[in-house]
């Protein structure tokens, strides 16, 4: 693995404006027959020359990288940030500097700044293993004429995200799923970028993907699209039904309806403090007025989940692809709903617990927590393998699994861009690994390796 830093050329005069790469004798010998220099999506013809003033004598590592010098014009053309430390890879004809990875941001903030990129800063804790240029951007950041990005890049010297004119990345880690960000898929051919987490299925689409899988089907609650008839049909079999908006996450928009008597429903809308009782004849009007029928909801029987002191809890499993392109489970946390609440999400006040702790609190100390842990891994792995067959490129899932009072597993939902709030409180090491894994994966699919993993040289 070759670590390098790019400097502005000290050579003055005619050769300054030429596409010449100056480096130490040793590296120049390895690179001299190469004629193309690639950085992100940009490439230029290059010739390599030895820089006599640069002494060798050490094996380059992240902290003592080889120096390559390029002219100011070449640096500007390729949009290289000289504060970064890079990896250098070379094939028969091409020298590649990188990795150049983009984080496509979502709509959490109207405009971004270092202090609003905390999770990405945490992920950059692994920067010394991968090096390269990490770019945070949105669709408005792209200059379509110049084919460059005005976004943020991580400066490892200042440990801050800074503003700059940047190259189009070779790998895009999609972290925002509003419709506007779909451009990233539409431009795959033009930009030749590899996009992962390229799509988010809504709850109904996900159910349709899962229901035909024989191994996963037993864990799926009965699920239907909401209509007045489908809802009444479900009430013929179940006394309590949960309504979930197809496209919202973090417990938003959830309503629970209970059949109180043959002619009466009690409605628990998460937004309101008090429950509402309505007559069966008013159900259609209630659904219409609340715009449930316009907004596309799914309905499921309300599961009698195992509880801890009366509060429901569920399990969040983080599955990620590692640098070897394999799915691994990087964390399991349990989320306990706040007292008196039915929704477990941490963002709604839920509390994080370790799996063993939650199982023992729910089922007693004799519970077979190792066996349950193994089953959860198996269900999660089956899910990920199935998603790989959809033809989309996924590398991260947050799976919500629950156990009912009979210790039956229920697959609640899968999130493509899960939040990791619970892990941060529960176990700092696990949280860090969850932050780092996509960085290693991005580096790998960008065609680079990482520290201590591949010291192979030509």
């Amino acid at each position, binding site marked *: 693995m070759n670590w390098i830093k790019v400097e502005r050329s000290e050579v003055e005069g005619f050769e300054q404006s030429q596409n010449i790469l100056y480096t130490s004798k040793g590296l120049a010998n390895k690179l001299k027959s190469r004629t193309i220099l690639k950085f992100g999506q940009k490439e230029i013809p290059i010739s390599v020359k030895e820089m006599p003033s640069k002494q060798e004598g050490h094996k380059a590592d992240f902290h003592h990288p080889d120096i390559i010098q390029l002219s100011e014009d070449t640096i500007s053309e390729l949009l290289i940030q000289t504060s970064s430390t890079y990896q250098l890879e070379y094939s028969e004809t091409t020298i590649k500097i990188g990795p150049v990875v983009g984080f496509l941001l979502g709509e959490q903030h109207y405009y971004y*700044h270092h202090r609003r990129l905390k999770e990405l800063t945490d992920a950059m804790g692994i920067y010394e293993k991968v090096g390269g240029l990490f770019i945070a951007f*949105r669709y*408005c950041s792209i200059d379509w004429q110049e084919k460059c990005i005005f976004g943020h890049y991580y400066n490892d010297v200042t440990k801050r995200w800074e503003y*700059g004119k940047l190259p189009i990345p070779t790998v895009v880690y999609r972290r925002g799923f509003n419709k506007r960000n779909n451009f990233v898929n539409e431009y795959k051919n033009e930009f030749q970028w590899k996009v992962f987490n390229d799509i988010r299925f809504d709850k109904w689409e996900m159910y349709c993907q899962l229901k035909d899988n024989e191994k996963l089907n037993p864990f799926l609650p009965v699920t239907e699209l909401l209509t007045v008839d489908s809802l009444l049909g479900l009430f013929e079999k179940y006394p309590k039904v949960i309504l979930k908006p197809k496209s919202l996450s973090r417990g938003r928009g959830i309503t629970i309806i209970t059949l109180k008597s043959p002619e009466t429903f009690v409605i628990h809308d998460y937004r309101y403090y008090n429950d509402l009782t309505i007559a069966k004849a008013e159900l259609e009007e209630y659904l219409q007025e609340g715009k449930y029928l316009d907004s596309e909801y799914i309905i499921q029987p309300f599961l009698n989940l195992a509880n801890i002191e009366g509060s429901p809890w569920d399990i969040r499993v983080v599955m990620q692809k590692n640098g070897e392109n394999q799915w691994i489970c990087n964390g399991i946390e349990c989320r306990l709903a706040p007292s008196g609440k039915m929704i477990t999400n941490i963002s709604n006040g839920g509390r994080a617990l370790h799996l063993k702790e939650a199982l023992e609190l729910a089922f007693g100390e004799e519970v077979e927590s190792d066996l349950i842990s193994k089953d959860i891994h198996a269900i999660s792995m089956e899910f990920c393998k199935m998603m790989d067959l959809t033809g989309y490129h996924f590398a991260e899932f947050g799976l919500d699994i629950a156990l009912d009072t009979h210790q039956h597993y229920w697959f609640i939902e899968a999130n493509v861009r899960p939040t990791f709030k619970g892990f941060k409180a529960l176990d700092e090491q696990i949280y860090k690994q969850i932050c780092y894994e996509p960085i290693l994966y991005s580096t790998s699919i960008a065609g680079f390796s990482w520290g201590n993993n591949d010291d192979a040289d030509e």
Partner: protein
Amino acid sequence: MKLVQSYTADFGFIYNDKRQQKLISHLITQLRPLSMEHKIKIVLFSLENLDLDGTIISGTIIEGNSVQKGQCDIPPFIYNLALHSNADKMDKMRSLRKMENTLIINPINRFIQGIIFEMLSSLPNLQPYLLPAVSLNTTTLSDYLEKYESFFIVQEKSFSKPKAVTIKKLHDEYIIYIGAYGQRCKKDEILPYIKKMIHKNNHLLIKGIDRLKNGDVPLEMKIFLQKNWKAEWSITATVANQGIFSKSESYFAKTRYPSNNLGIEEINEYTKCLDTVSKEIGRFLDYYIPFVGSFTFDFIFDEIRSPYLIYVSGFEQDQNIIGQMDSESQINLLQNAFYYLLFLMNNSGMEKGAHHELDKS
């Protein structure tokens, strides 16, 4: 429980019900002919009358010549003309911004100066128009007191009209200017004085300059910039001698304010230069801040007549903006807003990249 009628407007304009009552009559007068000419249904509303759960607006509906109070669905294109200062309204604006089927222009009208200046300082072309600036804390303040003969302090964000304070070293003392009035402060008292003055609010420190005067007062120019019918940045109005240093509340217009040391031709020359710089700043900020339809830039000048950007705000920071404009600027303001929405509507079917490319001047 009642079912509401479903009426769809094409465009929405948000105003502040309490502070912008005067705006309503201007909006009706100017938007009515545009509604008629382009067959566009418009709803004027305040956030109090937006029901996000029901996705219903109660407001003034303009359809051609007809103007009436009524209800309608949330329109696909909305232009925000108001500054929203309470948590409830800011939450509503945030939700509106995140709605998939609605595009809101100017979802935020108040910018954090430190962030804006950090963005701007990354563009080499803009360096000649920027002074060194940094967020104020004890370390940076001590550094600026040590390094510079004078510096300015401006609030990072403000709901009221932003004002700058000038701190100037004079022998063993400092003079603190707020507006035209100066107050002396001993050297060892300056730090506690400034800390007390800024209270706990965030402020920006900007290196001071000796400012060019227009007559007796330092020259300030305020540029009002808007996206126009081609989605290009254009100058709606320019005003001299009104800004964040000035105490005056003079009306602004295209009229210049010549004096004995600055002739009309010179001011026109500055205006031309600032027009160009302002448009470039607007184009650059588009990459970082999406869906802005208007900006206000405050500039000052040094004694060799170089302009410096000193404050960036949303257009509608000043609640009396319409009242202070001459009729030409008033027309420009609302026409630009309407035609920008029309551009977005007519181009909304285009592919994202092509659309974004068009939405650049």
